[in-house]
């Protein structure tokens, strides 16, 4: 094997951060399988060519495993003649276990399968949350998939379909957790395996689940349906611990970093360095809990807020998710069924009403939130808006009927 010269890439082997170039070179130079040596050598050759010319040389295509229509990112080289061993270099998107937990024995098993069939390069995880097995020929994709599918791994989404979901470390380790994140993650996404594996939706649809409003999964910004743990009752305060912290950091620090940072001015420092929280006006932003995790904890009446419609730039610009369920419990079976039902109704309505290549949030932008809520059978709620309408250009013919609805709902709540 003649090794390609890679002077620009070699530069990325210097410096203290671990080098992916050194890793690829190890596969080229030390792996016992010649197929992998050749493949990674040509990969480095093409990458160097990209560095020199400042252009990419992969093109897409159609590759799939038997029975599925998605889950693989096909890559064919435009400069395959010069780099034949990596001319087919597809990625398999594989769904990780919820919460990204692994045993080393399972990772080894995946590594064994991957070096048998693929390039030996893998990423935990891509931006959507998939394990990215980077670099397989068209034929090898089926063999690798068959292998890992037999021991419990399945492909994720690619194309206009339900995509792989993400959930945070959650109740497994985090005291801020308000729901069973991994259950929400798996219930939602595994309800839509058909919509994931056979792309037939208007565009992509992503679920992300965070256990608290710190939203470590960036779900409001990035998920079509975002489920975020929260609580309804009072923040639990361990006054003894809080006073200890105040003593350690001093009053000024407490005032500057906790009291005045509360977005709704809901915390007040007592003269004895204990605190008083106006819980009715707490918006569960998490800041004070983040600063003093030993003294402040989420309450006991826990559940989730659901937002719909987050996405990145394409096509109309970045959109945040919008609250459609301010609070729902996620404890009993019927609670979980209700969550799945919201997802089903949302995806059904979106599939029926979206334009081609239109994300759910973009559809809502086009048709208005009220029409979307009508479509999925959810009533309006003032928690869904930052403020009421500012424009007077609106027909209000049925105002009285709508007002009656509101009062009836309020009465029902009272008698319940």
């Amino acid at each position, binding site marked *: 094997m003649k090794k390609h010269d890679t002077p620009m890439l070699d530069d990325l082997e210097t410096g203290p951060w671990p080098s992916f170039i050194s890793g690829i070179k190890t596969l080229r130079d*030390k792996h016992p399988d010649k197929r992998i040596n050749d493949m990674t050598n040509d990969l480095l050759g093409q990458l160097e060519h990209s*560095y020199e010319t*400042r252009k990419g040389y992969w093109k897409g295509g159609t590759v799939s495993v038997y029975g599925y229509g998605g889950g693989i990112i096909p890559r064919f080289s435009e400069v395959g003649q010069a780099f034949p061993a990596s001319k087919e270099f597809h990625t398999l998107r594989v769904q990780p276990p919820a919460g990204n937990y692994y045993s080393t024995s399972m990772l080894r098993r995946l590594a064994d399968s991957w070096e048998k069939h693929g390039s030996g390069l893998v990423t935990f*995880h891509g931006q959507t949350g998939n394990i990215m097995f980077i670099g397989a020929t068209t034929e090898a994709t089926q063999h690798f998939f068959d292998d890992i599918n037999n021991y419990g791994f399945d492909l994720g989404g690619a194309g206009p379909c339900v995509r792989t979901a993400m959930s945070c470390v959650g109740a497994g380790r985090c005291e801020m957790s308000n729901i069973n994140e991994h259950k929400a993650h798996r219930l939602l996404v595994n309800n839509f395996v058909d919509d994931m594996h056979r792309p037939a939706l208007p565009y992509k649809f992503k679920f992300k689940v965070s256990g608290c409003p*710190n939203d470590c999964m960036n779900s409001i910004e990035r998920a079509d349906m975002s489920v975020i743990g929260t609580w309804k009752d009072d923040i639990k305060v361990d006054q003894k611990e809080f006073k200890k912290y105040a003593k350690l950091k001093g009053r000024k*620090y407490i005032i500057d970093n906790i009291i005045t940072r509360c977005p709704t001015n809901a915390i007040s420092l007592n003269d004895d360095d204990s605190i008083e929280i106006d819980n009715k006006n707490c918006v569960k932003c998490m800041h004070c809990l983040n600063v003093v995790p030993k003294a402040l904890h989420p309450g006991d009446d826990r559940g989730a807020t659901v937002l719909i419609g987050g996405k990145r730039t394409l096509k109309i610009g970045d959109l945040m998710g919008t609250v459609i369920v301010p609070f729902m419990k996620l404890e009993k079976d019927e609670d979980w069924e209700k969550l799945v039902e919201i997802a089903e109704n949302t995806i059904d309505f979106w599939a029926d009403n979206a334009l081609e290549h239109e994300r759910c949030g973009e559809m809502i932008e086009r048709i208005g939130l009220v029409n979307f809520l009508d479509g999925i059978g959810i009533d309006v709620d003032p928690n869904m808006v930052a403020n009421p309408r500012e424009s007077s250009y609106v027909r209000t013919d049925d105002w009285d009927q709508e007002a009656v609805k509101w009062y009836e709902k309020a009465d029902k709540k009272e008698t319940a």
Partner: protein
Amino acid sequence: MTDKTPEKVEEKAKPRTPIETGCPDGFQYMHPTMRKNFGQWKYHEHPKPGVLKHVANSGEEIWTVRAGTQRILDVFTLRKLCDIGDKYADGYVRFTIRSNIEYMVKDANKVDPLIKELEKEGFIVGGTKNSVAMISHTQGWLHCDIPGTDASGVVKAMMDELIDEFKNNEMPNRVHMTTSCCQINCGGQGDIAINIQHTKPPKINHDLVSNVCERPSVVARCPVAAIRPAMVNGKPSLEVDEKKCICCGACYPPCPPMQINDPEHSKLAIWVGGNHSNARSKPTFQKLVAAGIPNNPPRWPEATAIVKRILQAYKEDARDWERINDWIDRIGWPRFFELTELPFTKYHIDNWRGGRKTLNSSTYIRF
């Protein structure tokens, strides 16, 4: 034909049907102490950079050590990470959203030897709390079909320079950085984002358009309706109204003959203030602060220099717990541009739909 037994022929005719199991249960791969105390955690502490200590209601503890890697892992490196997990962490690991590996140990005495071993093997322990976290990034030239730049290389070059900020906790609050190798911005929102910004309309290969592209979908894909069908040299193709074109590259994925990437004119831009968390204020999107930065492999020094300047100003001027967006909210944008010595241009003023909401309609001005 002699080697093709009838069974083999049948096997070929009947491919294996997939088992549609979807997302696997993570519970089975969780450290036993975490399984046992699932949902029963009481509080956490941050004993030192890269280390978290969680304490359960039961009194049991789990210590986490977080380490940065090259993200594009070869099987040798993956097995090395597994060896370390077997030796020190009972064979359990997890990965963070920013592709760091985490080892969880029950026994506090195992933490220091684990850190020593990770560092000996070249991994970087850190990335917790108020550090510059690992840059989350996309595929770039290594694997993407539409990349304007590389991703892993940009990140390697930058992390080489920011490694001390990853290993220490000297920032006012955590800094999440992202990179994206096209304007679709798969890298997502970040306190600092380094993204491709094209500056010239696509160059169209008219010979290929009719064979490769579904023209109506390409027309529909354009955010500013600048593309229309046209006959060029007697062939059905597409044309771009270059006055309307915003050079976003949205037409390129569905129609590769509309080449948007340009070695010279595809530049890097830097955005700041994206924040996913609800803490202190509602989540925010990132804002453009610098553009026109050369796409300069293998080390992209110009982009790194600006990132360092922003980090320096933030580190010196922000208060504890302020993320970059919180900091700028307090000091105002004029001061941000002053402190970072970045030019403020007409391109910073948003003219996209709803952009008027980003203008200052008040007399709130800091003199």
